[in-house]
C-alpha cells in the first residue's frame, strides 16, 4: 500500500513539474497582396530609314543602328511586325513586288570570316601615302553569312624595331574589284614591332553589316613615311588570275591593280573577323522580338539593325512605305 502511494506521489510530482501546455492558436497570419499595376512602356530611338538599295539589291543598317529601350517599370516582352506597302508585300524572299525585311541582332561570338593566309613574301613598304587593298567576297573562303566585322589582321614585315600606327578599313568594291568610296568601317592601332614577320591586329570601330555574297575590299596603311614596314602577299592563294590585290600611291584616293612588288594574281595576306548576326524575318503578324527585357537601367536596351532585300522587279516606280510596329507586353 505504501509503495502504491509512493508511485502515485512521484507520478503526480512529475506532472506538476512538466512544461506548461501552450494551446494551439498562438499563431495567426495576415496576407498582404501587392499589385505592381505597371504599364509596359518602350521607346525606339529611330523613326525612319530610307535605304539606298534599288530593285534587286539588299542593304543593312549597322547592328546598333537602333536601340529599343524599356522605359517602364516592369519587364516586358516585345513583338515586331510590319505592314505591306501599297504595291509590295512582305515576304520571306524577294520577288516580283515582294520584299524581305529583317531585324538584325549582333551575336556574341567573334570568329574569322574572310582571309588570305599569312605567307612570308614581302611586297613593298606600306606608309601614310602608300596604301594596299584586297578584294574579297563574303562567303569566298569563310561563312557566307551576314556579319558585323570587328577587326582586321594584316601580316607585315618589320625591318627593325618601329612603333607606329596601323590603319585598316573596309570599302565597297568597284566593278574591277578596286576600293571605291569612303570607308564603310575603319579602325587603327598603335603597335611596336621588332624586326621580323608579325600579324598586326587592327580593331574596327562602329558597326557595319556585310552582306553574304557581296564584294568588298580591305585596305591598310600606316603612319610611317619610309621603308619601315612591308605588307606580305600570298602568291595566288585563290588560284585565280583575278587582280584582287590593289595599291594606292596617293593615300587611298585612287587605286590600281598595278603596284610595287606584286602581280595580278597575288593576294594580300589578311584576316577579317566579325560577329555573326541573328537575322529574323519581319512579317505582318507579330513575332517575338525580345523576351524578358528588364526595366533596370543598364539592362533595359536592345540594339538592333534592319536589313532589306528589295523586290527583284516591280510594277511601280513609286516610293513605297512600310511601318514597323513594336509592341510591348508586361510579363
Amino acid at each position, binding site marked *: 500500500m505504501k509503495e502504491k502511494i509512493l508511485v502515485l506521489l512521484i507520478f503526480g510530482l512529475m506532472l506538476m513539474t512538466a512544461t506548461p501546455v501552450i494551446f494551439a*492558436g498562438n499563431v495567426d497570419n495576415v*496576407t498582404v497582396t501587392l499589385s505592381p499595376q505597371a504599364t509596359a512602356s518602350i521607346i525606339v530611338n529611330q523613326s525612319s530609314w530610307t535605304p539606298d538599295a534599288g530593285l534587286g539589291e539588299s542593304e543593312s543598317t549597322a547592328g546598333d543602328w537602333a536601340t529599343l529601350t524599356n522605359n517602364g517599370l516592369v519587364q516586358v516582352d516585345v513583338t515586331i511586325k510590319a505592314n505591306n506597302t501599297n504595291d509590295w508585300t512582305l515576304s520571306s524572299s524577294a520577288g516580283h513586288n515582294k520584299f524581305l525585311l529583317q531585324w538584325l541582332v549582333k551575336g556574341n561570338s567573334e570568329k574569322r570570316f574572310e582571309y588570305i593566309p599569312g605567307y612570308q613574301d614581302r611586297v613593298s613598304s606600306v606608309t601614310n601615302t602608300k596604301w594596299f587593298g584586297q578584294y574579297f567576297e563574303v562567303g569566298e573562303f569563310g561563312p557566307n553569312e551576314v556579319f558585323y566585322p570587328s577587326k582586321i589582321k594584316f601580316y607585315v614585315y618589320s625591318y627593325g624595331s618601329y612603333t607606329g600606327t596601323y590603319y585598316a578599313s573596309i570599302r565597297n568594291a568597284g566593278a574591277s574589284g578596286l576600293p571605291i568610296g569612303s570607308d564603310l568601317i575603319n579602325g587603327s592601332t598603335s603597335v611596336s614591332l621588332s624586326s621580323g614577320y608579325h600579324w598586326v591586329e587592327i580593331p574596327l570601330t562602329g558597326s557595319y553589316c556585310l552582306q553574304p555574297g557581296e564584294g568588298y575590299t580591305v585596305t591598310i596603311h600606316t603612319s610611317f613615311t619610309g621603308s619601315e614596314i612591308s605588307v606580305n602577299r600570298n602568291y595566288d592563294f585563290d588560284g585565280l588570275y583575278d587582280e584582287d590585290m590593289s595599291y594606292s600611291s596617293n593615300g587611298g584616293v585612287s587605286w590600281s591593280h598595278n603596284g610595287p612588288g606584286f602581280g595580278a594574281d597575288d593576294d594580300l595576306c589578311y584576316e577579317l573577323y566579325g560577329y555573326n548576326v541573328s537575322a529574323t524575318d519581319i512579317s505582318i503578324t507579330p513575332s517575338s522580338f525580345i523576351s524578358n527585357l528588364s526595366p533596370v537601367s543598364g539592362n533595359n536596351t536592345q540594339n538592333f539593325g534592319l536589313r532589306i532585300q528589295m523586290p527583284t522587279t516591280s510594277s511601280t516606280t513609286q516610293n513605297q512605305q512600310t511601318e514597323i510596329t513594336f509592341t510591348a507586353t508586361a510579363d
Partner: protein
Amino acid sequence: MKKLIIGLVVLAMVSLSLPVSAGNTDTITVTLSPQATIDISVSPNSWTPTASLNHSDNTTTTYFTIDTLDTDVNISIDVKASDTDAWTIGDTASHNVFVLGITPDGGSKTNLTTSDQTIWDDVSPGNDPQFGLNVDMPTTSSTNQNQQVTITFTASALA
C-alpha cells in the same frame, strides 16, 4: 533551589548530547504550473495596398488588432514576413525588392524580414495590441502579376 538549578543544567546537557534521529523531517516540493492558454487572432487578416511600383502605402497604426482572446498569461509576439513568388523582402526598395514595415500603435517602425523579430515583448492578458503596416513597392519589377506576402504572428508565454 540549588538542586533545581543543577537538575536543569544536567537536563540541558543531556538534551544537547542526544543524537539527531534520521527521518524525523521531510519535504514535499509543490510545483505550480499555469498551464496557460495562448490564443491570438489578427484582424483584419488581409491588406491590399493601392501602391503601384515605385510607390509606397501605409495603414493607420490602429488598422490591425491582435485579439488576445482567451490568453491568460503575459506573452511576447514575434512577427516575420515571407518573400513573394517574384520579389524578396528587404530594407530598401529596388528591382524586385520590397519593404514591409510594421508599426505598433504608439511605437516605432520595424522593417520585417523572413526571420522572427519580437515586436511586443510583454503583452498582458486582455491588452490587445494594435498596429499598422507600410509598404515600399519595388522600384522596378520582372513581373506585373500580383504578389502575396504572408505575415506570421507567433505568441509565446513569457518565461
